[in-house]
């Protein structure tokens, strides 16, 4: 990352961190973590399971909301406010602008998620739970998910209006977590006529389940770190693909 990309990332980071919307989203995340404790009390046993499950799902939703509310409208906001005019008429290229913007957004989103995760970890320890490797794997997986979602949000933001980009990002999240169903539909010889089509779809759609380690967390099952590493690489591939797509679209953009 060169100095210009870093400068764009830093400006994006500062701008986003100071934005009130972000504050609102973070308050929501913290409230969710605290509320999960209430849900824990409501359950008969397994309070910590409830706290972890709901909090980690909350962290995932936090990443989604940030991508939808901040990421998807990010480029449109730049164009609408014409801040892009003062940036792109300098020596920075459009690719540097997109990559810098992406890096800044991801840094902010990760900061929010890691902050909430630290709060959750504190909760778990205070309430006598143990932090298994699976917890850290789940958080790492969520960060990878955010990597992909932010890239999708920027790509869609470069392609369409912010509202459509937001809906698209939300749809990508749902599809990304639903693609495993394509395999289930053809498992054990079911629907053989669609097996090939489903397999193709399964391969070409971003599968966020590859970095979803939440379900293994609460029972403290051992983490397949190899799978997490491969999942991270997979997420990085998708992030780069969407980011490259965003750059290609942004290069053609007329302001």
């Amino acid at each position, binding site marked *: 990352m060169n100095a210009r990309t870093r400068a764009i990332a830093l400006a994006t980071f500062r701008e986003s961190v100071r934005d009130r919307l972000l504050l609102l989203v973070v308050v929501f995340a913290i409230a969710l973590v605290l509320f999960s404790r209430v849900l824990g009390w409501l359950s008969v046993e397994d309070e910590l399971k409830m706290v972890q499950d709901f909090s980690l799902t909350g962290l995932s939703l936090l990443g989604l909301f940030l991508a939808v509310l901040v990421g998807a409208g990010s480029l449109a906001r730049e164009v609408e406010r014409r801040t892009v005019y003062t940036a792109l008429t300098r020596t920075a290229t459009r690719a540097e602008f997109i990559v810098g913007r992406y890096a800044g957004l991801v840094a902010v989103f990760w900061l929010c998620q890691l902050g909430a995760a630290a709060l959750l970890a504190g909760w778990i320890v205070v309430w006598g739970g143990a932090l298994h490797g699976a917890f850290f794997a789940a958080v790492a997986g969520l960060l990878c998910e955010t990597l992909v979602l932010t890239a999708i949000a920027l790509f869609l933001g470069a392609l369409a209006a912010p509202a459509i980009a937001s809906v698209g990002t939300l749809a990508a999240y749902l599809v990304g977590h639903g693609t495993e169903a394509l395999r289930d539909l053809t498992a054990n010889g079911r629907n053989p006529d669609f097996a090939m089509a489903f397999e193709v779809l399964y391969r070409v759609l971003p599968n966020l389940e590859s970095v979803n380690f939440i379900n293994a967390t609460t029972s403290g099952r051992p983490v397949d770190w190899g799978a997490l590493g491969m999942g991270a690489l997979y997420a990085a591939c998708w992030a780069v693909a969407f980011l490259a797509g965003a750059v290609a679209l942004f290069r053609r953009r*007329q302001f």
Partner: protein
Amino acid sequence: MSTVVLAEALQKSFRPSAFGPAVHALRGVSFAVERGECFGYLGPNGAGKTTTMKVLTGLMTPSSGRVELLGGRPSEAAARRGLGYLPENPYFYEHLTPREALEFYGVLSGLDARTVRERSAALLERVRLTDAADRRIRSFSKGMRQRFGLAAALVHEPELLMLDEPLSGLDPAGRHLVKEIILEERARGRTVFLCSHVLADVQELCDRVVVLHKGQIARAGRIDELLDSSPRSFELCAAHVPDALRETLRARATLFRESGDTVTAHLAGAEAGPELAAAVHAAGGRVLSLVPDRETLESWFVRVIQREGPAPGSDA
């Protein structure tokens, strides 16, 4: 003199909606801006001024034609290294302070952060924003934003300044300050490409202008050549004018005023003013002033535009 900006047969068309008709914002615009001059780019709303600036700065690509910016293509980052651009009604990252924003723009223009920090204080002082250096830009008035925009355009000491309406939204002191800075930059040998509606300022600052109308160049040339330098009328103010001569003045003036012993007469034509002033003097009267009324850029501009026909309602 070398050419800093070159536009050759520039055309730019848009299609605002997928099935709507195309809008031709530029229809074969050609001009050149030479190093060290202050170039005025004028035109009514919707003439294509902003589109031209976007094409020149690389924010847009032309549909056809050739553009050169500082010896390269505007789409090349290297060509933009020497460009300092201030867009119309500029917006900046609202949550940054001017100091942070200057660092951002400086680094984007190829400077290292330390150099920018060294320059920041002097630059903010130059645009009278030292007191607001650590306030967020979101709290700035329009005039402060405009002045900060100028500082951001100057941070990397560019050889070409492209300023789109740099004087809009400024109070008189602000206008004076910005004009002073533009003149100083010119004196340092920088080229200034100025786009403004305030034609009195353009006349004051620019050597040469181009008037764009309906996407085409309507007029171009040096201001002193374009404007008729001979006086169109005179305003004569005199005292102790004998009665006979007073009546002559009343008869020949298009507008005549008396205030005690003093008379003021607007005299049409290039000869009547000096001739009657001499007569007053010869008759023992006292000529207080004889002011010629020459054509201004504004009146010239209105004349040109009226001759070319009505302009579309909005800026392209």
